[in-house]
C-alpha cells in the first residue's frame, strides 16, 4: 500500500523533537471549593452590585481545572453578564482595569463556544463590541496568545 510519504509527520517519530509546552502554574480548584465563590457572585448580583459581582468572577478564574468545572464557572459568569443592562455596560467597562478587561474578553470567547452562551449570543456580542471599542484589540491578541485558557 503506497502511503503518502510526503505527508508523514517525521517529527512525531523523533524522540528529540517532542515539544513540551511549559507547565501551567495556576492552582487547581475543585467544584466544591468554587461553590461558595459562585454563591457570592450570585448574591452580589441579586443585591444590585453588578460591578462587584463581575470583579469577583474575574479575580483568579479556574484556568487549570477540568472542562466541567470551567463550564460551571462560566455559566455563573454568563448570569452576571446577562443581568447587566445594555445601557450600563459602558459604565462597567470604564471601571475595570486593563488586566480585568483581558479576563472579561476571555470569558466572552469561552462563553461563545458553549451552547448556553450561544443562546445569549446578542448579549455577549454587545459586551465584546463595546469593550473593544473602548480599549482596542489588545485583549483579543492576548486571548489568542495566552496559555491560560478557560
Amino acid at each position, binding site marked *: 500500500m503506497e502511503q503518502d510519504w510526503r505527508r508523514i509527520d517525521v517529527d512525531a517519530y523523533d524522540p528529540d523533537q517532542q515539544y513540551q509546552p511549559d507547565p501551567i502554574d495556576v492552582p487547581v480548584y475543585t467544584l466544591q471549593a468554587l461553590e461558595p465563590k459562585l454563591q457570592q457572585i450570585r448574591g452580589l448580583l441579586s443585591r444590585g452590585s453588578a460591578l462587584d459581582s463581575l470583579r469577583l468572577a474575574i479575580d483568579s478564574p479556574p484556568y487549570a481545572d477540568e472542562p466541567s468545572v470551567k463550564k460551571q464557572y462560566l455559566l455563573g459568569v454568563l448570569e452576571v453578564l446577562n443581568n447587566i443592562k445594555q445601557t450600563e455596560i459602558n459604565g462597567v467597562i470604564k471601571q475595570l482595569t486593563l488586566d480585568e478587561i483581558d479576563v472579561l474578553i476571555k470569558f466572552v470567547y469561552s462563553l461563545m463556544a458553549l451552547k448556553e452562551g450561544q443562546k445569549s449570543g446578542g448579549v455577549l456580542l454587545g459586551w465584546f463590541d463595546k469593550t473593544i471599542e473602548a480599549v482596542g484589540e489588545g485583549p483579543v491578541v*492576548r486571548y489568542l496568545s495566552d496559555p491560560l485558557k478557560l
Partner: protein
Amino acid sequence: MSAPIEFNLSKEPIYDHCFSQDKQTVAITKENTVEIYNVASRAQPKLIATLSGHDKTVTALDINAKGQIVTCSQDRNALVWDKQHDGTYKPTLVLLRINRAATSVKWSPNGEKFAVASSARVIAVCYFEDENDWWISKHIKKPLKSTILSLDWHENNVLLAAGSTDGHVRVFSAYVKAVDKKPPPTVWGERLPFQTLCLDSNLRSWVYDVKFDPSYQFLAAVTQDGSIHFIYPGPGDQEVEGVFTVKNSTLPFKTLLFVNSG
C-alpha cells in the same frame, strides 16, 4: 518630527534589510536574492549589485564593519559574501547543519562571528577557521524548544540574546575559544563557556524581537500578546531580578529598537 524618507525598491516583500556602515548603500532581500542599492541620492536609488546564491527565500541578512554580508535563507544555508575589486560579490557557503529554515542572522559587533537563528530549535554560531579556510558552525541546542525568531549580540562579542516562539527570552554565551578572548565579568555572568545559559525568562507568548539596551544592562522584548517587556538580570546565576510589562491596546509589535540611551 521630520517626515520619513521612503525608498520604493521592490514589489516583493522585503524580509530584511541592512544599511552599510556609511549609510550610503542598503541591502534588501528579494525572494531568493539580495539586491544592493546606492541610496546616496534619496530620490534615485541605484541598483549596484544582485547577490544570487540561495535556492529559497532569503529570510535575513546583516553587514559587518568590514563590509562582509551574511545572508541566510529558507534553504537551510547561510552564505558569506565578500566584495571583490570589481564590485561583484563572491559567496562562501557556510554549513549550518540545520534541518529547517534559518530565520535570522546577526554579525557579532567585531565582525568575527555570526549567529544564525533557525526553525530547527538551534542557534548556529559560526566562525572562520583559517587552517581549513572555511566557516564552521557550533550549535546552541539546550534548552531551546522551538523556533528562534530574533537574536542580539552583546558588545563583548560573547553574550547572545535570543527570543523564541516557545515564549522564552534567553541569554547564551557564544564564546568560541578559537576566536574570542575571555570577556570581563558583566551583570550577565562570569564564567562563560560555550552554550552557558545566563538568563531564561518565560514571557508566555511568542517573542518576536529582543534587544539589549544601549548600556547592555537589561533586555527589551516584544511579544505576540501585544506587550513590551523589560527584563532585568539579578546578581545570582540565571537570576531574573524583575520583568516589567507594558501592555498595549493595538495589534502586536514585530520589532523593537533602542534609539538612544536617554
